[in-house]
């Protein structure tokens, strides 16, 4: 069952996609200026991410991302981009998305988060809470054992989880064809005993509809769905990568023709609900959003001895001693 979409939803989705692209491009240039660490751009995956988020209810549904999606989770509030920017700077506050926002921090260890989403969905089921857990991962992650363990477990437990494989065709330099010999990634759902759906990941409305249907199914107690959203990574894997070494130029050029920001904008213009001034407004508010996130993140206080915080709920005596020793040492070096 597709959610009812109003024009304001379509406009809202495009605004978020633009915001995500602008944040991604800004963080890229901040990395090039040496002001932040390695960053993985979202370029090309905005429709998949924003479309999926639009099918969710932020008050009840969890999002368990990998490391690109936080730029496209504006539906869960501006806090996500603030924290992601702090994360990119390397500030510990970056991993702390405050309660009650139902979003996990970025995940670096690929596919581990898929199991976390199953556990979260299991908790929702145990507590009889009306919600789902949606997790993002890439084509490369489907080669990890955790993907199979998670799919299998979700099938057995019938928990309300949505597996969203954002297939951007590349795991750094390894093409999707080298990840699997199966006919697409959605086909793997067969082995888990859950439905597998393939969708055009460049079309946010198509993504929204399949995620919405998977959500309805999960909320009705019928369990998990695996969705493969096919898109294309329009840039580098990360700021540390040079895709010109391995991405065929003609293939990239063809993908750029299908750039979700261009295609969806054209659709809304054809419907008469988007124009040049709205585009300019959306771009301006995207710039403001990342400006604000940057200002917030760069003004966070930090002490070197904060490195001990929150390992445990209360520090061990040994950690306390180390913290005291470090404090004294740092005072001596000032």
């Amino acid at each position, binding site marked *: 069952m597709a959610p009812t979409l109003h024009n304001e939803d379509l406009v809202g989705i495009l605004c978020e996609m633009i915001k995500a692209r602008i944040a991604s491009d800004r963080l890229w240039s901040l990395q090039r200026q040496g002001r932040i660490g390695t960053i993985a751009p979202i370029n090309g995956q905005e429709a998949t991410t924003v479309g999926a988020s639009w099918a969710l209810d932020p008050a009840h549904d*969890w999002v368990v991302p990998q490391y690109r999606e936080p730029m496209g989770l504006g539906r869960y509030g501006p806090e996500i981009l603030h924290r992601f920017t702090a994360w990119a700077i390397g500030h*510990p*506050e970056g*991993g*702390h*998305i*405050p*309660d009650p926002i139902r979003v*996990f*921090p970025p995940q670096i*260890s690929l596919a*581990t988060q*898929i*199991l*976390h*989403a*199953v*556990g*979260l*969905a*299991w*908790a*929702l089921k*145990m*507590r009889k809470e009306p919600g789902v*857990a949606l997790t993002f991962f890439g084509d490369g992650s489907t080669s990890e*054992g*955790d993907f199979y*363990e*998670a799919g*299998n*477990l979700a099938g*057995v437990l019938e928990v309300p989880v949505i597996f969203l494989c954002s297939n951007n065709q590349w795991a750094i330099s390894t093409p999707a064809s080298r990840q699997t010999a199966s006919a697409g990634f959605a086909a793997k759902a067969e082995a888990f005993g859950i439905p597998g759906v393939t969708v055009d990941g460049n079309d946010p409305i198509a993504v929204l509809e399949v995620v919405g249907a998977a959500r309805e199914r999960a909320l009705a107690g019928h369990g998990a769905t695996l969705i493969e959203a096919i898109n294309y990574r329009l840039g580098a894997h990360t700021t540390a990568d040079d895709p010109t070494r391995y991405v065929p130029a003609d293939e990239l050029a063809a993908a750029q023709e299908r750039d979700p920001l261009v295609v969806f904008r054209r659709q809304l213009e054809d419907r008469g609900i988007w124009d040049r001034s709205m585009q300019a407004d959306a771009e301006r508010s995207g710039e403001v959003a990342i400006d604000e996130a940057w200002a917030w993140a760069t003004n966070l206080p930090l002490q070197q001895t904060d490195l001990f*915080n*929150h*390992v*445990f*709920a209360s520090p*061990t*005596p*040994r950690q306390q001693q180390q913290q005291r020793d470090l404090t004294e040492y740092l005072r001596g070096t000032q």
Partner: protein
Amino acid sequence: MSTHPTSSQLRNEETLTMVSAINQTLMSEMQRDERVMVFGEDVARSGGVFRATEGLMARFGDDRVVDMPLAEAAILGAAAGLAAGGMVPVPEIQFLGFSYQAMHQLAGQIARFRYRTLGRFNMGITIRAPFGGGVRTPELHSDSLEGQLTNIAGLKIVTPATAADAKGLLTEAIRDPDPVLFLEPLRGYRGIKGPVPSGEYRVPFGQARWAVAGDDATIIAWSYQVEVATRVARRFAEQGISVGVLDLRTLVPLDIASIVDAVERTGRIVVVEEAVPTGGFAAEIIATINEHAFYSLEAPPVRVSGFDTPYPVGMLEDTYVPDVRRIEAAVNKLLNATP
């Protein structure tokens, strides 16, 4: 440092094997808090390969006591999600050696999730796992991995040596907001038996216990080796030599004050572990002694360990695992040491 349970606590007690103490504790904690869930391989229908979880499914239902697909990473990865979602997971890893297949979830995720999220998500997970040698298991069923596990910041490592401590420490573990690896000695499940206080009984983490008081030397041990060390101490006592046994109870957090006390009291220290010595926890204890109590030593500390080999097959394991004779020899060497 704490002492044995007081006599008033012991007035209401019963004699239990360690596995029964564990089973009863799981029962009472599941009864107390409905968020507590027990899951793992063969824990529900069969009650666990050692029967530690026997009767739990019948009493609490198969939604709280769950037989899992055979996948260790799934067991621990799901536990992380459950904890973040407000449950209190008590997963079992059937044998500690199988935790290699979940190490990325244990070390890479559970142990650092609280840190990564700056305290947003507690990982109040108690992972129970049997370990240790002496029962002629197939490969990877007996490995002692303390050295590797204590090197993971963010995990508490708990190693009970008595039935009473199994209850008191497991209760504490389940109520602790942090991830606890609760290591149960294979040989101790039925081989260790003793008085267990009835009703609510908690043993705080980070408080070692003098299993045997002594003045001439101290054997520092944990888990089943406390039992072996106690036999050694008894044999020395027959010769009029007072050898103490300090049971660490928890490796993380570590009771450094009691270790220092042992050095100051006896000056001679043997540390016993069943594991590979290189990079191991006995080495950590000796380094700790060097930092905190070096000038109270009367002889260089000695460790009695496994060897720098994989845990061997059954016909070799009695040589690998420290026993009374090897520990005794180490104590004698210490007692005879002269500067």
